[in-house]
Structures are given as C-alpha cells and as structure tokens.
C-alpha cells in the first residue's frame, strides 16, 4: 500500500538513542548453542530435503528426491527424468565456504516494544550466526544505519565479538532499510537474513535479493502495540523516527481500520516474498528467538 507522505516534525531527534540497550542474559549463550546444535542437526538429517543454497563448487552430491515447487531447475536430474519420466532433483551437502549474511535494522523504531524489537532482532542475529558457524558457513553481520563495516565471523570463537558489538546498543537514527545497500561481501551470500520491522522498506527491492543460489529470509519483528493496538480511546501516537506525533481516538472502529491497513501492508510483504521465493516471517518482539527462527530456518 502507499502510505501518505506527511511531512511532520519529530518530537525527538531521531539521531538520539531510543529505547533500552540490548542486554544478553546469562542463559542466552547456552540457548544459542542449543539452538544451533539442534537446528544444524536437523538440517544435516534432512539434507537433501532442503533447497541447495548454492549450486556449483560449494555443493557435493548427496542424493535424489522428488521435485517440489520452487526447486532450482538446475538441480533436476535430467537423466533420471529421461529414464523414469519422474522429476527428481539432485540434493547436496553444504560445505565450508558458504557465506551467510545477516542484516540487522537498528533504527529508532526498533527501540519500541517489550522487549524492544532491537533486543529480539539481536538475539535472533546471534542465534543465526551460531547456526551458520555450526554449519561451517562464514557469517557477515551488517547493522544497517551504522558506519562500521560488517562484522565477519569465521568460527564460533568470533561470536563473542558479535555479542560485544550488539550488547549495549540502543536503537537510533532514521529508517535504514529503505532499499538494500551493498555492505561488505554479504551481498554475495548464499543465504541472507534481514531482521527488522521493515517500516519504510521497499518490499520489491528487498525481495529482489532473492536470486538463484541465494535464499532470502525476511524476519519481520513488530511491537505488540503495533500489531494489535488496544482500543484505549484518545491517545498520542509518537514516532521516534520521523513522523512526529498524532492524536488518535483509538476506539474500536479506528483500531479495526488500523489493523486492516497494517494487514494489507503485511500481506504485500508476504505476497511479494512468495512471488520471489523468499521467506517472510512475522512475529512480535515478545516471541523467543527459538519460536521466531524455527519457522525461518527449519522450514
């Protein structure tokens, strides 16, 4: 949907940090490791049942399975098709050398929610990085909106550097996910995860990252109040980034209208993602990273 381009004055400078800082609890390290181990095991067990991330030198033949919609046509075993008149695809085992890219939105709106969307995205980023490293991939993490170069992780020992980079960070700045920007080498990654609320982002541009040999997973995280606002009557709605402030009579009718409009926008993301073969996962910030990523990774 097209949103009105309403010029407005923010009630706070968008550059200022907003929301609570990211804090990693003591149990998170174990949970990330457990998640990575279980997910890697599952992926290994079903390897051949999932889509190959890259065709070519990185992939080693592992077996055949019946063709499913969305499979890369280049993996079809044409010889078997000619012999049996059945469509099978060749499956491969991932190897070291594959690169995962993780794009993390840290703009001011990510400071919203309990816990904040940034907290949820940071926990998910750590979990994905752990998983990628467990699978032998190298991982590049780019925090959109910051000037520092993407952080490249080659082994599990590097996870501490990522945790140090994320912990204590607060949301701030204008929306950074408008269109994908080439940062580091993740642009050539076999699998790209985008973590953010995607407000202000262009679905077509982002889903365009999905291409042959690269999976794209859009992990959209919204605050509970953004997903399902309460009908609480007159209320001031404030945008920490750019939209200023509006006074809303949030009665049942207005909430319903809001939810319809938001639902239409989310449906646009889902539809564009499906058309491009990307995954789109939506959840609120209160979800655990395990709940959020089980759908994104172990599909």
């Amino acid at each position, binding site marked *: 949907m097209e949103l*009105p381009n309403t010029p407005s004055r923010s009630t706070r400078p968008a550059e200022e940090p907003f929301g609570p800082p990211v804090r990693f609890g003591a149990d998170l390290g174990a949970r990330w490791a457990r998640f990575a181990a279980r997910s890697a095991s599952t992926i290994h067990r079903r390897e051949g049942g999932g889509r190959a991330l890259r065709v070519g030198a990185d992939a080693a033949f592992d077996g055949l399975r019946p063709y499913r919609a969305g499979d890369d046509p280049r993996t079809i075993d044409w010889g078997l098709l000619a012999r049996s008149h059945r469509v099978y695809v060749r499956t491969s085992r991932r190897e070291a050398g594959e690169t995962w890219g993780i794009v993390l939105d840290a703009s001011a709106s990510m400071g919203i929610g309990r816990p904040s969307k940034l907290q949820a995205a940071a926990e998910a980023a750590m979990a994905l990085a752990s998983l990628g490293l467990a699978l032998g991939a190298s991982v590049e993490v780019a925090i959109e909106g910051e000037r520092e170069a993407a952080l490249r992780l080659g082994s599990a020992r590097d996870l501490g550097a990522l945790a140090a980079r994320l912990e204590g960070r607060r949301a701030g700045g204008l929306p950074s996910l408008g269109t994908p920007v080439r940062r580091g080498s993740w642009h050539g990654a076999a699998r790209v995860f985008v973590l953010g609320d995607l*407000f202000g982002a262009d679905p077509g541009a982002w889903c365009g990252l999905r291409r042959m040999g690269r999976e794209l997973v859009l992990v959209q995280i919204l605050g509970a109040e953004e997903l399902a606002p309460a009908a609480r009557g007159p209320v001031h709605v404030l945008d920490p980034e750019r939209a200023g402030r509006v006074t809303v009579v949030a009665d049942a009718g207005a909430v319903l209208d809001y939810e319809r409009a938001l639902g239409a926008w989310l449906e646009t993301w889902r539809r564009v993602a499906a058309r491009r073969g990307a995954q789109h996962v939506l959840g609120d910030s209160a979800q655990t990273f395990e709940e959020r990523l089980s759908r994104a990774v172990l599909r």
Partner: protein
Amino acid sequence: MSLWPIVWERPIALALLPLWLALWWFLRQEQRRPEVWSGAIEFWRAVSPESTRDVAREGRLTPRWIVWALAGLGLGTIALAGPRGAAPGPARVLHLHLQPGGALWIDRDDPAGRWQRARQAIARQAAALEPEPSVWLWHDGASAPLETEPDGSPPQAFLERLARSAAPFAPPDRADALWVQAAAPDPKPLAAGWVATGGDERAGPVGWDRGGWVHLEGGQLVPESGGAARPRWEPTSERSWIGDFARLWAADRGLATEGDGPLVLSVRSLPAPALASDGEVVGRDGWSAAVTPREASPSVAPLDGKSEVEVWLAASRGPLLARAPGQVAWAHVEWSEPRGDPAQVALSFADFFDGALAAPPEMASPEARADQGEAGESAPRWDLAAYPDPSRWQRGALTALAALVAALALLRAATLAPR
C-alpha cells in the same frame, strides 16, 4: 497614571486566581493523554483521518482554547477585584453614616446605652486610622452632612431628628465611610467600616392604638392595660368643616384634648394666599372645594417647622393645607363644603392628619426596640480611601470593558475548543 502601588477594592476576588490555576492544571492533565510509541504511525494517519489530528505543530504547549479561556477568567477576576493604580492623595475626611430611626437613640440616657457604645466604637476606629482623619462628617441620610472635629459629637437636635427620621439606611460602601448602626450589617460592606452597638431589647411603647399604648415586651406587642395618659392634640376653636373633621378624626384615634399625655398634634394657621374675589376651586384625591378670601384675622398660631413643612394642598398663589411633624395648618380663607364622594374626602383628610402625628419622645418603632444582637466593628479600607474614587461612569466603563474582554476571550475559547 501611576501603575504602582496597586491597591484592590475587593481583594477577596483575587482568591479566585488559584482556582483558575488549578483549573489550568486540571485541563493540562486532561490533555495529557496516554502516549504510545509506534513505528506504524503512518497507518494511523492513513486509516481514519477524522480520528487523528496532527498536533505536532502544537507541541506540548497548552491548547490555545485553554489559554484563551483562562486569560478571560483571569482578566475578569482582576477586574472584579477592582485594581486602583492612581497616585495616592491625603485621605482625611471620615464619613460617619448614622442609622436613621430610634435604634441608636432609644436608650440615650443610659451611660452604657447604644449611642454611648457607638461613640466609643467610633473613637476606637478613628484612632486606628493612619493617617488620622482631620474631619468627621456626620450623615443622617436626609439632610446635609454635619462637620465636626475628630472626637466631636453632633448636636442634640441632629440626633433627635435622626431618631424621628424614617429615611432608609443605605450608606455608600466607600473606603472613607464608617457605618454606625445598632445591628451588624448583613451583608458586610467591602470597603466601608462599620460599628454595631448590639444590645438587648429595650421594652417600651411602639405605638398608640385608639384606646391605649402598645408596648414591645419580650419580643411581643402587648396593649397597655389602662392607667396611661392618652396622647393629646390641640384643636382650633375656629369653626370650619375642616376643624370639625379634625375633631372627628381625633376622637376616632383616641386622642385627648386635656391631660398629661404627650402632645402629638397641634392645629396651626397658614397665611391666606392671594385669591381672586370670586375665589378659586381646589381639590385632591377626588374631592374639591371653593376657597374665597376671608376678612377676619386668624386666631391661631402660625405653622412652625420650616424645612419639615409639607404642603398638602395649594391654590395658584400659595399653600392652603400643610403639615409638619406634630402640626397641621390650613389657610385662613373661606372654605366651601367639599364636593365629591364623602368617603374619599374622609380618607383623604385622615391621611392628612395621620401623616402629621408626632411620635412621642418615648415611642419608638418595634425594630428600634428589638434585640440588636452582638456588638461588632470593622475598620474601613482606609488605604483605599487615599485613592480617588472612580466616578460612577468610570466604574461602569471599566466594568463593561473588563466584561467585554472576558467575554471575547471566553468566546474565542469556545470557538477553539475541540468538539
């Protein structure tokens, strides 16, 4: 005009200002709605324009309609308080407004009576004024004020006239005035001071009802049971139908012509006005009579009383019937028999004689004899008296202007207030 110092005619009105501040605080709280941070603000803007209002420009300031409303209320309050900003001048005249009637004078012979207590309270109040007044002006509500030195006292005649006066007591609420009365004023003046003598009921005669005096005793009107001397009147020996009518009226009222009773009415004469030889027709209240010149000289004394004389009936060139307290008089002319309804004639002349009856010195109204409650006194706003009192026109103009400003502000607030 000097803006400082500002003094207030009714400073009590300023007590409303904290109320408006409290109202402002309350309205601010009302405006302080819950705040929700959201990255999806554009959806709120898009879905229901009528349910959203962009207040970014307004920021967190108090809405303008509240500002206008409070400005109107504040200005109205200040106007109500009556600021005075003129340069002060010397205030040296203390106006003493005495309550007419017998309430103050009822126990004049008692050294601890009402009038004596009033004098002491007046002296106390005057001594406390700074600067001390240099002149006292005594007002009886009817005649010109009487000037005395501070701590002076009006003459006996002034006080007796005051005691007989039936003028209403309506003293001005001015900062240079001290109201002197028996019972405490209700409501209290804002600027004027007051002294109230208080005092128990003073039992005694309050009227004459044909056969005898009526007394006030224990708050009740009690007819006197025999023995008291009847009030007297002095008729004229000259024969005329008016004289005959006076005798009938006096008999009906129970007045005596002899005895030790107080003299309440005397018949006197008026000099004959110039009349044409064929006379003149005069009349009132539905009756008329022809008057013609009379040769003989009057045998009764002329009317006395000067300023208190009331002309009741006049010919073209002079009075024919007049009265003063305790006296009636008619001109020494020939009166024809009255024409008209006899009942109207009787009522008209009964009113003439009744209005001339003098109250005996010991008689006072029931209100004057009644219990006057507790004594009390309050100082005048002497500080205000140093400032020129705005004229009635100025006060009205200022009030109208303040009301107009307040009304405009409230109107503006009403147009800006959210529906």
